[in-house]
């Protein structure tokens, strides 16, 4: 189980980073979205992986997983939406101002 989650996180990071290194703004938006998934999962995983133990203090739930990382990640998810929206708006604005959807990139190294 741990291995699977770790592999998933690694995959998300790798793909996210590759996309962040592209020249088009929209690819960077994709990349940052993937990266925020990865980061959220790392944060979440710091509370360790437990199935069938939601942090609800109600009858019928015997075990409780760590609620703190979940609280952190919950707001992080919403904020990463805010960031994505902002980036998209920025990309559109840049498109409107410069007529291009890439970064100002004179030197193709």
């Amino acid at each position, binding site marked *: 189980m741990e291995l*699977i989650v770790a592999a998933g996180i690694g*995959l998300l990071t790798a793909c996210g980073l590759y996309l962040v290194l592209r020249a088009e703004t929209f690819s960077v938006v994709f990349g940052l979205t993937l990266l925020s998934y990865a980061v959220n999962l790392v944060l979440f995983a710091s509370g360790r992986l*437990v199935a069938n133990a939601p942090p*609800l203090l109600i009858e019928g739930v015997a075990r409780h997983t760590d*609620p703190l990382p979940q609280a952190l990640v919950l707001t992080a998810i919403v*904020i990463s939406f805010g960031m994505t929206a902002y980036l998209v*708006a920025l990309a559109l604005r840049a498109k409107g101002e410069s007529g291009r959807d890439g970064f100002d990139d004179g030197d193709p190294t």
Partner: protein
Amino acid sequence: MSVLIVLALMALLAGAGFAPIAARFGRVQASQTAAAALVAALALLAPLVPEAMSGQVVVASWSWLPEWGLDLAFRFDGLSLLFALLILGIGLLIVLYASYYLPVSDRMGRFLGLLLVFAAGMLGIVLSENILLLLVFWEITSVTSFLLIAYKYEAHDARIAARMALAVTGGGGLAMLAGFLLLGHIAGSFELSDILARGAQIRAHPLYAPTLLLILLGAFTKSAQFPLHFWLPNAMAAPTPVSAYLHSATMVKAGVFLIARLHPALAGTELWFGLVSSVGAATFVYGAYVALLKHDFKGLLAYSTISHLGLITLLFGLDTPLSVVAGVFHIINHAIFKASLFMAAGIIDHECGTRDMRRINGLFKYMPYTATLGIVAAGAMAGVPLLNGFLSKEMFFAETIEHPHFGIHTWVLPVFATIAGMLSVAYSTRFIHDVFFNGEPINLPRSPHEPPRWMRFPVEILVLLCVAVGIAPQLSVGPLLDAAAGAALLGKLPHFELAVWHGFSLPLVMSFVALAAGIVYYVNRRFLFELHERYLPDLQSPVAFERVYQAMTAVAGKVMALVDSGAPRRYLAPLLVFAIALGLWAYWSAHLTGVSLALAGTAAGAPAGPVVQALALAGLAALAAGCLGVVACHRQRLLAIIFMSVVGLVVSMTFVLLSAPDLALTQISVEVVTIVVMLLALRFLPARAEAAEPRGRRLRDMALAGLAGGGVAALSYAMLTRPFETISNFYLANAVPGGGGANAVNVILVDFRGFDTLGEITVLAMAALGAHALVSGLRLSPYAGSASREADRHPIMLAMLVRPLLPLALAVSLYILLRGHNLPGGGFIAGLVTSVALILQYIACGIDFGRARLPLDQPRLIAAGLAIAGATGAASWLFGAPFLTSAHGHVHLPLIGDVELASAMLFDLGVYLVVVGGTLLVLTELGALSRRELGAEGPTQEPVSQKPATREPASWS
């Protein structure tokens, strides 16, 4: 009593706030408001006057940032009293004058608002007890004077002049900050009372010299001392009321005020004498020399201001008790005659339409009354007997004779003083003779005549004061001068007599020599002009400043270009390489010291049944497909978005599987809105990116990304298999008794860590508003299939299906909001669900359809949410508890069940509103983008209200 000092400042700031509002009702109302604020400040300070006059110091102090030594400490003594009178009194006259000077089309709201903030800054300087607080006010005057000088901001020279004034005085302010910090360090306190009492200790300290230099740099820039004077003549680009205020009684007097204020602590050394008196003397002569050469009479007045400031500085530099008295006296006199001269000049400018003294001649015939006022004020400037300027200048002459510093060469200073006096007489004569006599006006744009009665009134008052002080000095300003000079000398006031006639003495001879020589000098001016043109044509041009300024901006631009290459990957790639190298290095160095390199730790993995395992593996496979799909298709954006949604779905499922229902709900609803945002934006970007990047670069990036991804995976695995300690048991144990909720995640969000959440929703609000600001007003042409080709944009089936869904979805979101404290849900999730429900309506039926039925002002929604959340937190103060302390109790509602009614619920409502407002703001803004483009292309839009029940042609796409 002492609280009155602060109230006086508040009165000015309140006036600054109200004047622009009053300006909406009319100019008169605006002026009255501003005048009322100034009068209120005067009235508030009035009860403190007797104490200040009797030599006492009133101090009022409140703790602000005690660990930095910065307190809200104010003082009121004789010097403060004098300056407060000048600032507020002349301010009143300026307000009256400006309402006639400024064109009727100017509503005056901005002018009066700025003027009052500036006056508050000046008043703050003279009322500060804490020198750091003084600096805060000092900077307020720098910034507001920038705005006032650039008042006519359409004019290029006004902008340049304002920039220059800000650069010079702001730079001086920085030097002064450093000097004040050193001074506070030496004296062990930032309070003036302490600093002034420890003069000997300060002067003996090894850091005395740098401290003095830095503080004087600040004072000299502000008071336009040579060679930092050049901003002042340029600042004449400001409207004349501003010049009259800034360059007579306020702005430039701040520097000499500071010299007077800190005189007891810093003066009394060779360094002080050498520096202050030589800079003052140079400025005195230089300003007087250049003033005569100016053809623009406002320029003449500007250089004469520089010259008089030099004289005042010189008097403080001479550093005898009597010279300090003379300095304070000349501050009063200069403020009075220079303000009246500037205002008279403004009247002439106003009536003639030009300020060129080669064209303005013989005005006495056209405006005899104003001319008389101007002549008297200029006479005071020249130092003609029976006017106030004569008295302080004579005190100056008296001080130059036998000054202790010159030993046997006692003649040096008196001769210098007489020459400088002669130059002052010369330019004053030019002002009088050229403007009011000397033939007929040449080719004036307007035919001059007397100004309106009340425009002249401020000048009359000031000229009357010139005469009153000049004839009966002891009666008129004697006590005030005693109090102010006494405060500047810490009570050690020397004996002196204010009288017009001291008998036939050497200073009197010097005065008459200066007067006569000055007139002779003026008569021979043509010869002198020619000499000047031949040898020193560039003496007064601020070319050097512009050159330095341009060079500095060029260097800054180069540095920026070096640091910010414009392409994120240029700096991300090296960062990645570095991070990877750091990780590898740490790994290998650990290996060398014999630490185990096994990634897997000792902790037992989570017990997972075969079903869970199988699900997890399937999830990983789907994730891999999604991720690689995005990467492979990132140039075909529509496909990439579809793959993206697969990834989001897998992440949500992971949360479901691993006991995080709240996260799963959040993730899945965020997923919906994110995908909608991307699809909306896609419309304006080519569905396919144009050219593929070179293969080499792609391979390199793949290698980098692969290495980094592998590293993160290894680290995650290492973390997951390590033993685990948590601080969360506190939250689990206290969620129900302390927070009153069974959903530990939600209780943490809205209660235990409520302050974090408040910050986070603020960030969300800012991001949404930022996106709104970026996109609003933007016009883009679409790439993907043009709007007109999309025949069926709101399929009727979808519309019919979605409409009944809305109430259901809203009910669900309400339920989720209410139950959130005990079961998965809460403000974030409910907000997202509501947004999704509304977005679905917009998609199905068009944005106009939605807006017509549910007019939401999203920014207001966001503001309301933040206000509710903040108010909930602040409410706990009312009960004496810290910010965001929650109170709770249970209520049983029919159908819904046991509901937690905690103050935290209200907080969650705030979260809900911010989330709804934020997401809808972004989405409708992006939607409106395509609608604007439609409107521009012009397919007919039917008004929504006509056929509300059917499919709207007006669309959202």
